[in-house]
């Protein structure tokens, strides 16, 4: 039996409905789910809880996803703390910027099922 590693997933997302489904799904996978409602909170939470991966939305109040990513990457690089951008804001500019800032993958939420998203997480963390 493969040892199911328990990952700590930080989900930075301002939509409560989406937080819930994502959270439930992660929990069902047997991973730890840490929510944050905006970039600012996200940064604080990183310090507190040391996640293995960040699911990062872009459009958020107080601090946007890209801003937070910038801050994160000041401290943690891709190897240490991979980031998956999960957003419905698909402007191409953001994609290249996000990748340039050190995101691993850029996903448009509406185009992926939860199952597919879990797959991607697994891909990145393995």
């Amino acid at each position, binding site marked *: 039996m493969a040892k199911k590693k328990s990952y700590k997933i930080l989900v930075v997302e301002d*939509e409560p*409905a*989406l937080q819930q*489904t*994502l959270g*439930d*799904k992660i929990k*069902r996978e047997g991973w730890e789910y840490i929510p944050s409602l905006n970039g600012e909170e996200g940064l604080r939470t990183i310090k507190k809880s040391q996640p293995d991966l960040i699911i990062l939305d872009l*459009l958020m109040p107080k601090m946007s996803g890209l801003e937070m990513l910038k801050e994160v990457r000041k401290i943690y690089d891709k190897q240490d703390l991979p980031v998956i951008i999960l*957003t*419905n*804001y*698909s*402007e*191409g*500019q953001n*994609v*290249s910027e996000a990748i340039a800032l050190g995101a691993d993958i850029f996903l*448009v*939420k*509406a*185009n992926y*099922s*939860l*199952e597919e998203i879990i797959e991607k997480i697994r891909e990145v963390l393995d």
Partner: protein
Amino acid sequence: MKLFTQLVTLFIGLTLIPLIFVGLLTYANTKGVITDQIMAQLVSIADIKKNQMNQVIDAYLADVEELALRNYLRLNLEEYNQNPTIELASSIEANIFDSLISSPEIVSIAIKDSKGKTVASVGDDYVEPLVNTKQSPAIENIFMNSQGIPRVLLRSPIIVNNSTIGSVEVVSKIDPFRIIAGDYSGLGQSGEVLIAKKNEAGDALFLTPIRFDQGAALKRIVKKDRTDVPSTHAVSGEEAFFLSGMVDYRGVPVLAVTRFIDRQGWGIVVKIDRDEVFQPLTSILLTFIVIITTTLLAVVLVAVFVARAITKPISQLSQAAGKLSQGNFTAAIEIISYYPSNEIGVMAKAFTKMASQLKELYRNLEAKVKERTHDLEKFELAVDSAYDQIVITNPDGLILHANKSIERITGFKLKEVLGRKVGSRELWGGQMGPDFYKKLWKTIKIDKKTFSGELINHRKNGDNYNVLVRISPVLDDKNRVVYFVGIERDITKEKEVDKMKTEFVSVASHQLRTPLTAIRWYVEEVYNGELGKLNKNQKDYLKQILESNERMIRLVNDLLNVSRLESGRVTVEPVLTDLVELIGTVVNECGILAKAKNCQLNFIKPKSKISKIKIDPVLIAQVINNLVSNSLKYSKSSGEKCSVVIDLSKKDPNVIISVKDNGIGIPSGLQNRVFDKFFRADNAIKSETEGTGLGLYISKMVVEASGGKIWFESSEDGTTFTFTLPLSGSPARKGEKGLS
């Protein structure tokens, strides 16, 4: 002086001057001749008169001498002297009385004794005894008698044996003298003969009546100081001729000759009035004046006529030339009305012709210039009123002209920018990187092609603005750049609108996607049984929800793509792509759908190898996918087995990809709308209710952005869609990364 006047003057001068010259000569000549003639005549007459006078005097003396020599008388007188008796006296008286009677001209005779006492006298005039006696007969005097009649007093001594015993005195008429003086023959109408002697005062006393003064005898005098009168000279003994400067006793200018009778002391003047002498001269002069005047008139008339005939054409020509020099061609031609058949006429004709040609030339030129100006005005107007900014520069980029829009767009006025270098920081340019400008100049100056691009400029007040620019070189016939024409359009607003649209679309799509995502995830989890087992019906319903939701998501994606494609924001990233591989991948992807539709999907590879071409694989894959899935979706449900064939071939300069099906086809009436946004044909809708109507629209945009063309053929038996891609590859386009 005008030519006409010159000619007339010449004519007049040429005729009059010789005429006058000749006239003057003739006059002078004639005068001389006349003078000489008259003078000779006068001299001759004067001599004759002198002769005559002498003869008359001789005659007188002879008469008196005769008496004195009468023997009878002498004897009687001698006797008387001794013995003065009355008988003797009477005898003497009777003697002289005879002479008196027999000589009509004798007026009185008196015999005087030696003492001077009158012995006997007969006749009327009696004279006082004289004191002076001469020894020979002489004319003692001419005197006025008591009646005022001039008489001659003659005297002769009576001599016997050499001693004077007495004298005889005779008073005679002066008629002989008068006759001499009264003979004016040869002296014209005004000639006179004057006989005069000096009186006691020394003045000249006329002795005889004269032509113009019958009572002049012994009355009229000419004062001795009047040396301008010939009489004065005559009585002084001068024998001369006087041609000029002399007047007579009347004060009238005369020609005169003087003679002197020595023994009497009498002067003779033969004179004639100058006027009479020179009268012929005067009439010559008058005639001459008449001739000259008449000639002058005639000459003037002729001269005017001839001069006019000569000068008229010249004058016309000169006037015409004047008008020509002022640019008045019509007047120049019209002025010349007369072409004489001489060299002037030739000149005039040539001139008229030249003027006509010039007029024509000018007219043509004017018309051309007008036309060009019209054209120019049209174009100037067009350029000036263009909404975009139009700048014309010389090959070095110095601004020659800019239209009005420059002030509106850049904030600089036309006069501020003329002559300055375009694209400089001081004006509205210079904000793009050096590479940009390098490329710009290379394109227009070295490649001599049009440059199009977008850039950012700044207005005079410092504000930045977006510009769509198009700069074209204008070349001369030697392919050298003479101008650059740059058109700039301020697209700041468009860019803003674009940006807003983009943002709107992004935000809108984001806002739409968020609830769609929520629905998807929640429903998916329930559908997958994560929240408990479901019965079939529940699963069915949830499936429906999921499918509808998926449709919505696809629609949002399509809308987003369309928006991006339309605003040109899709990146075309050409990479060398193997088409065979690409199509193969798509075929694989569509495999599931093909199976579901029970369709045969075939890919016909090309006969000869097609090398990789530069295309954007993502975009082209999308197109092929769209065409294939359309073919599969719109296949016939009954009848022949559904078959979709993909063909790849090469035909210079393109590759050709076609997707052929035997599906439901596109109704002919709707075929022209197939590529329209959101268009779906009725039969398509019936066949497959899903479908956004955007697939072909997007495919067309992608194909055309890639440099190719897309078209189709369709009937009830099926449809074939074909598109081309250039072998040279698609042009790269910067936008945002790919399609959703």
